[in-house]
């Protein structure tokens, strides 16, 4: 294979895992470095800004909690896009992407839940409320775990990928329903206690570190994601090589 054939001109060129691996090898140190820089800036900003006059120091939990929650949802979107890629375009890397994203998404969701309950203890006086948002995030966490369990339960990776793609898409239809249904179901509990970013509800003092942290988390996600995809490709190659080796060994045994 000559060198220029590894050049990537179109998105579909990424379908070749070797090209993808070459791209990953170039990109990931930059991504990781950028993530580290942004985290340094974001954490510095997060710890130097003034605390909230009501919430005091605990407001700093927000800088981890809110980006993690955003990422939890974005990760599911990435998985849904990958599922579409698997089912519609039969992109060979799409199932790798969906499979690699599931544990990362579960981790971000768990981080959001844990930091949320650490924040909830001093603020609401309780670790857990069956509030609309908490419940829907918890359901999202359960769905991630179910997805991982399904992927583990099947031996054949391509078939597991297709079947879990169907599940991901069904779940994607269901997520808005869960989100809104829980809001209608239990609106009296904590209407607007989770800070949202629609404009002026949050002052620029908090907004700056929050945005930096959000970008840092997003880059962290992409770094982890492409590395996980690389590992998955390498794992599959090793599995194939092992199978070939076992078959060759069996043949030699027969000949002897």
């Amino acid at each position, binding site marked *: 294979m000559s060198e220029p054939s590894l050049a990537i001109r179109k998105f579909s060129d990424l379908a070749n895992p070797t090209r993808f691996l070459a791209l990953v090898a170039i990109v990931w140190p930059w991504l990781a470095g950028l993530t580290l820089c942004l985290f340094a800036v974001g954490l510095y900003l997060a710890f130097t800004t003034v605390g909230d006059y009501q919430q005091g120091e605990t407001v700093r939990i927000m800088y981890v909690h809110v980006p993690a929650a955003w990422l939890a949802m974005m990760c599911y979107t990435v998985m849904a896009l990958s599922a579409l890629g698997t089912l519609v375009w039969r992109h060979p890397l799409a199932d790798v992407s969906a499979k690699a994203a599931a544990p990362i998404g579960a981790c971000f969701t768990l981080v959001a839940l844990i930091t949320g309950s650490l924040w909830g203890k001093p603020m609401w006086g309780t670790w857990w409320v069956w509030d609309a948002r908490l419940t829907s995030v918890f359901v999202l966490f359960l769905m991630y775990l179910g997805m991982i369990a399904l992927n583990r339960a099947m031996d054949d990776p391509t078939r597991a990928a297709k079947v879990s793609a169907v*599940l991901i898409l069904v779940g994607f239809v269901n997520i808005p329903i*869960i989100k809104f*249904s829980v809001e209608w*179901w239990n609106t009296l509990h904590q209407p607007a206690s989770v800070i949202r970013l629609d404009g002026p509800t949050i002052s620029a003092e908090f907004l700056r570190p929050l945005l930096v942290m959000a970008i840092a988390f997003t880059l962290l996600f992409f770094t982890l994601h492409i590395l996980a995809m690389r590992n998955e490709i390498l794992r599959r190659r090793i599995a194939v090589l092992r199978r070939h080796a076992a078959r060759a060994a069996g043949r030699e045994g027969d000949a002897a």
Partner: protein
Amino acid sequence: MIALLARDLKLSVRAGGGALIGVLFFMTVVAVIPFGVGPDLNLLARIGPAILWIGALLASLLGLDRLFQAEREDGSLDLLLMQETPLVLTVFVKCIAHWLATGLPLVIAAPLLGLFMNMDETAIAATTLTLLAGTPAITFIGAAGAAIAVALPRGGLLVSILVLPLAIPVLIFGVSAVYAAIQEPAPFLPPFLILVALNLLFAVIGPVAAAAALRLSSD
């Protein structure tokens, strides 16, 4: 299609009383609750609708893994896949047969259990009505889970794990419709209509997803 419906119904009724097992499980779950929370009749009357709904949800999940498993074991699933009628329609008919065999008995058994729970007439009527409207939705969305897990050697537990989060909206609107019927100021119709809408939505999504999963897992 009518033949398939009749065949599935016969199979599920004759194969070891499949429908009765579901109802029995439902009754057992509901009967266990008073041991857990104590025999306080007022408390039971208040949480009765929720208990009936959760029991019905669990009971209808119970038989779901058999929806396509038996067909796969004796090979008739391949025949269904190769038929000229669209697979979505076949799955839809199978869901209806499954609901008639396992869901409908639950709905019929609900008023009796409502009496055990010391619920008044409106609550019993509302619970039965919402169960009638809600259990098909659970069957439809469960069919997708059953089709996804059909190729697995031990898919039963996994089906429940996959389907339960998807069935949460049905549970929420079913229970909230019942409570709206009991407590005066809240209107009964909006949550009930949303429940019916969910039913219709899942009647589309469930068979389509199940058909796609069956096709993908068969080749």
